[in-house]
């Protein structure tokens, strides 16, 4: 094993202490570290805020760092990541000849106007001018320089977004012919919103381009209503109508138009699943269409038409686990009958009202006996767990088919409390006892 390898491992060991411990042990680790001929990489770990936590030895580490003949990139890295940013920046300017790309790297972090001036005087490339516009106060100076050249549409957009020479850039953009994509971002992100919108409309945007405003991924909300209204004046496909409903833009009108197109269950699946303003209407529509199992589960899960969907589901061949899921969503009598028959549990001897009152009394007198996170945990149980504990026949069912089925057959009208939080369970039990 080489000496270097041992030194590196020792350094790592001490660094771990330095970064994770505090007080005397940390101070001792630092003392030992300093004896190990630390290089700039090592010292960066002491000075930089990331990737590790900040140590109390930043100042001392920085002083040491300067004595180790750091390279230009070493110092730039400190500028980018450390609380010693300003000191490192000064050091950088005093000791190194900086290329344009170095200046840009530093400007992006420090937003230093003086450096931006330096860069401006060096005939910077177009993308370097863009950096000056974005990160410093010399926006107009950079924009003016860029306008003297032949900026492309992207560069003109940067001028519009960042400088006060936006109108000049806008005129130039019109001469060059903006795409609808160019106009869309000007509407969404700059203060030439109305100008760009008018021009966008003159360019006959497609449905898809208008829908981008409705979807509003940028979350600016700009021209959303206007785009939706324009779309409704056109011939729209089912997907587009579903999208308008999903985004809650003129949903009533869109739904009426959608119905006229006689949508199938698959066309409405998304509308139900996303819990839109028309979820229940869409579920009701599907229930009339002899829906398949997938659609019925979707309705059961996401709409208010649970019992109706459950009634149709139990006409189909179901696995036991599906029945177990079903009874948690809909405790209607037909569902319970099918389930109890499958697991051969005699419900006739269960008095649900009496059982829930018995549990409520027990828990309200001793709330510490309620543990909503576990079916059974020693002497504590969740609501469903308590029902099973107090019912011998159900304990057999639990052993064979699990807690959910056993508890659901005992308290079918309280399944929503099996997985509720503690406050909800206690509050509903109080209501039962009142």
């Amino acid at each position, binding site marked *: 094993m080489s000496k270097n390898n041992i030194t590196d491992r020792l350094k790592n060991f001490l660094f771990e202490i330095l970064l994770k411990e505090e007080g005397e042990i940390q101070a001792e680790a630092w003392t030992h570290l300093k004896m190990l001929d630390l290089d700039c990489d090592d010292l960066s770990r002491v000075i930089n805020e990331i990737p590790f936590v900040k140590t109390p030895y930043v100042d001392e580490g920085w002083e040491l760092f300067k004595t180790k003949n750091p390279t230009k990139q070493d110092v730039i890295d400190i500028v980018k990541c450390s609380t010693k940013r300003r000191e490192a920046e000064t050091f950088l300017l005093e000791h190194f000849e900086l290329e344009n790309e170095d200046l840009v790297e530093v400007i992006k972090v420090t937003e230093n106007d003086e450096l931006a001036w330096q860069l401006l005087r060096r005939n910077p490339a177009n993308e370097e001018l863009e950096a000056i516009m974005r990160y410093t106060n010399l926006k107009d100076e950079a924009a003016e320089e860029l306008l003297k050249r032949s900026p492309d549409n992207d560069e003109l957009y940067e001028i519009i977004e960042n400088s006060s020479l936006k109108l000049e850039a806008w005129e130039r953009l019109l001469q060059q012919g903006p795409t609808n994509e160019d106009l869309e971002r000007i509407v969404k992100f700059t203060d030439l919103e109305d100008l760009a919108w008018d021009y966008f409309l003159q360019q006959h945007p497609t449905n898809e381009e208008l829908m981008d405003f409705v979807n509003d991924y940028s979350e600016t909300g700009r021209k959303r209503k206007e785009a939706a209204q324009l779309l409704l004046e056109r011939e729209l496909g089912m997907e587009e109508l579903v999208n308008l409903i999903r985004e809650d833009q003129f949903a009533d009108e869109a739904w009426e138009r959608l119905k006229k197109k006689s949508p199938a269950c698959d066309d409405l699946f998304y509308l139900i699943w996303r819990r839109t303003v028309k979820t229940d209407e869409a579920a009701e529509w599907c229930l009339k269409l002899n829906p398949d199992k997938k659609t019925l589960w979707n309705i059961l899960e996401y709409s208010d038409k649970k019992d109706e969907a459950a009634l149709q589901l139990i006409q189909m061949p179901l696995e036991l*686990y599906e029945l177990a899921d079903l009874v948690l969503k809909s405790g209607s009598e037909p569902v319970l009958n099918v389930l109890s028959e499958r697991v051969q549990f005699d419900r006739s001897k269960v008095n649900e009202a009496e059982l829930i009152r018995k549990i409520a009394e027990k828990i309200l007198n001793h709330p510490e006996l309620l543990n909503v996170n576990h079916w059974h945990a020693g002497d504590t149980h969740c609501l469903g767990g308590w029902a099973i504990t107090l019912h011998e026949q159900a304990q057999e069912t639990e052993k064979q088919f*699990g807690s*959910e089925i056993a508890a659901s057959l005992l308290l079918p009208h309280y399944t929503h409390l099996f997985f509720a939080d503690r406050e909800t369970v206690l509050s509903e039990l109080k209501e039962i006892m009142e």
Partner: protein
Amino acid sequence: MGIFMCQFYFRQGFPKVADIQKTFHRITGLKVKLYSNVYMDELMTNGRDLMYHLLEKSEDKRWDSLNETYFACSGFNDVYLDYLNPANKTLDLKYGAGKSNTYFYDAMMKTMQEVGGVSYRHPPFEEITDDSIEQFLEPYQPHTPFWMRIRKWDEMSDFEKERFLFNP
């Protein structure tokens, strides 16, 4: 065949492997071990945080795939520790599902949350920081069906065990 992945954020820093093992045993009644092809230095890992050292051994300290580092539990497919990033205190668990049983993976997710992790869904290719991650966190709700179903393996009925079989 599919791959499951879950991301966790640890406000208080990564858990010790011993704590993960203890919590996993409390939840499942089973034993879990962490294996890695990353060479471990006894001096560095003696009684300390193993996960931290996994990262120390990797070249890129901010964001590194740890490859063959995985949790194993007898009778189940391994769960991989995919990324570990001390800068934002996050790690990912990955599980090649196939038609296998997801019990071990689900139980590892529950374990990670019970040792201080919070799961999150974050748009890919975006930098995560302590501040920005807050908006993506999904609070752990142990009383909900998914987590309530993960109980001690030997105390579940065959029917309950079968529900962990993944059907693509």
